[in-house]
């Protein structure tokens, strides 16, 4: 990988280089591409100067309108929507876990040694991840109509890719020794999964599930902007009516829920994993 052995080179030629010429070339290409894309982007992004100059004034105006925060309206407008958001996140995550398990197994080459199936499963996982949850929500609102059902399915389908990919990686990283031993004893494939792989990936699985639930709480909060239920819908109407004090209330509620979710996740992690 690096330079030729020191012992074989005459003393005058022993130059210490960190990387071979090929590696330096490759790194150079990457740097070039990065810099070029940054420069091109800066030049072509449209920034309207008047808006920019206006910005500080707008921000101050925004903050003034948000204060005082509309606390009194919490119970009737915000609370139910907040609960719905949590349900969307939780049920969506559960749906994803159930669906991602088989797909993750099919994608792991060491379990299912058929490359076409691995590729198909990986394609499903990549597509699920590449489509943003908001876009999934749009799709499901189109199919099932507005409401929490669309939101739950959106979260679920988006999370399959995330859970499936990480789960597949955990499977591929499991120790092969115990698996070999079980196979050598004549164990059928399903028992090899249950006794050999599952105990090894269990901690990762729960860790991934908690991690994704945490992210989904955040994601669920905005799905309502496209009509898929939860607190996003309250946010949407408040924005449309320029009720910035209510917007502030909703933002605060979202923030509180996100922090709560983080605390729950940290505590569960400590105890269970």
């Amino acid at each position, binding site marked *: *990988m690096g330079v030729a052995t020191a012992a074989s080179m005459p003393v005058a030629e022993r130059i210490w280089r960190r*990387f*071979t010429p*090929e*590696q330096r*070339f*490759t*790194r150079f*290409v*990457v740097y070039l591409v990065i810099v070029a*894309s*940054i420069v*091109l*982007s800066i030049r072509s*992004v*449209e*920034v*309207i100067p008047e*808006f*920019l100059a*206006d*910005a500080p004034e*707008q*921000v101050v105006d*925004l903050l003034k309108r948000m204060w005082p925060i509309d606390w009194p309206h919490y119970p009737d407008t915000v609370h139910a929507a907040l*609960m*719905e958001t949590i*349900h969307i996140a939780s049920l969506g995550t*559960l749906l994803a876990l159930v669906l991602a398990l088989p797909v993750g197994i099919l994608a792991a080459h060491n379990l299912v*040694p058929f490359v076409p199936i691995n590729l198909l499963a990986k394609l499903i996982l*990549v*597509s699920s*991840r*590449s*489509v*943003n949850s*908001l*876009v999934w929500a*749009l799709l499901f609102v*189109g*199919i*099932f*109509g507005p*409401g*929490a*059902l669309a939101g*739950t399915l959106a979260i679920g389908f988006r999370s399959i890719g995330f859970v499936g990919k990480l789960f597949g990686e955990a499977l591929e990283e499991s120790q092969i020794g115990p698996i070999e031993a079980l196979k050598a004893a004549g164990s059928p494939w399903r028992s090899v999964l249950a006794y050999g792989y599952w105990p090894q990936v269990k901690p990762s699985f729960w860790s991934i599930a908690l991690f994704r639930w945490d992210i989904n709480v*955040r*994601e669920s*909060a*905005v799905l309502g*902007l*496209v009509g898929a*239920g939860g607190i996003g819908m309250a946010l949407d109407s408040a*924005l449309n009516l320029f009720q910035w004090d209510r917007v502030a209330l909703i*933002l605060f509620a*979202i*923030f509180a829920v*996100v*922090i709560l979710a983080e605390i729950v996740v940290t505590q569960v992690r400590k105890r269970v994993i």
Partner: protein
Amino acid sequence: MNTVAALPADPFQRSVWPRVAAVALLVYVIYAAAQMEISWERVQTGLYNAQRFFGRLFPPNFSRWELLAKGLVESLEIAVLASTLGILLALPIGLAAARNLMPPWVTWPARLIIVMARSFHPVIVAILFVKAVGFGALAGILALTVASVGFIGKLFTEAIEEISLKQVEAVRATGAPFASVLWFGVLPQVFSRFIGFATYQLDSNLRNSTMVGIVGAGGIGGTLFAAFQRFDYDFVCAILISIISLIMIGEVLATAVRRIFIEHATVADLFRAGGAASRERHLEDD
């Protein structure tokens, strides 16, 4: 020890808690589904609608490809600039938040900034920036920068807090100035992890940049939302396909960058069959 008659009732001594948790979960699912009025009939009606819906999605309509391309390019630009800005800001802030290197009066504000940056969904942040700097890509760039600072900052801080202080001590013991201590003692240990999450964030920003347009912050999201509201579903399909392709390409490039900087691959290495180890273990290789 144990005779035939005296086998323990449960030789596996399994805890009862997993079963309790499973039952609790089932109860919750039923409760939550009821709260959200998810019923089997709704799902069935939906599936029926789905058929018609998919019929209108296909075949995808690429006739307005210039609009499509413009939106994609703008999303790409938003992602690139937000990542750059985000990385540049996240490095000092992440460093400042490292409790093993900095005093509390520096780490607390830095950690607070990172937590706040992470707590809000980029779309919500985008809404606020649209109000502040107007519609367009700038709002999107700023929103995703905030998200990047939150993500990269947190992971960067964690990476720094996990380094071995012995290596830092060793460099300090040579009498090196603080900057050199950072450069030779701290950064080499965190560099490869940093590449990992920097590429991840670039990828994530690319995904999000396709979406912030829905609230007016630039990029293909706006085009997508508009097409959706006009019921131009075949155009929607074309846009989705383009977005997915763009993101997949992004992932491939991110993996390549990771291999170049972490595994020191060369261009030739990248094209060789990806590092999957031979399936048959060469037992006699030790």
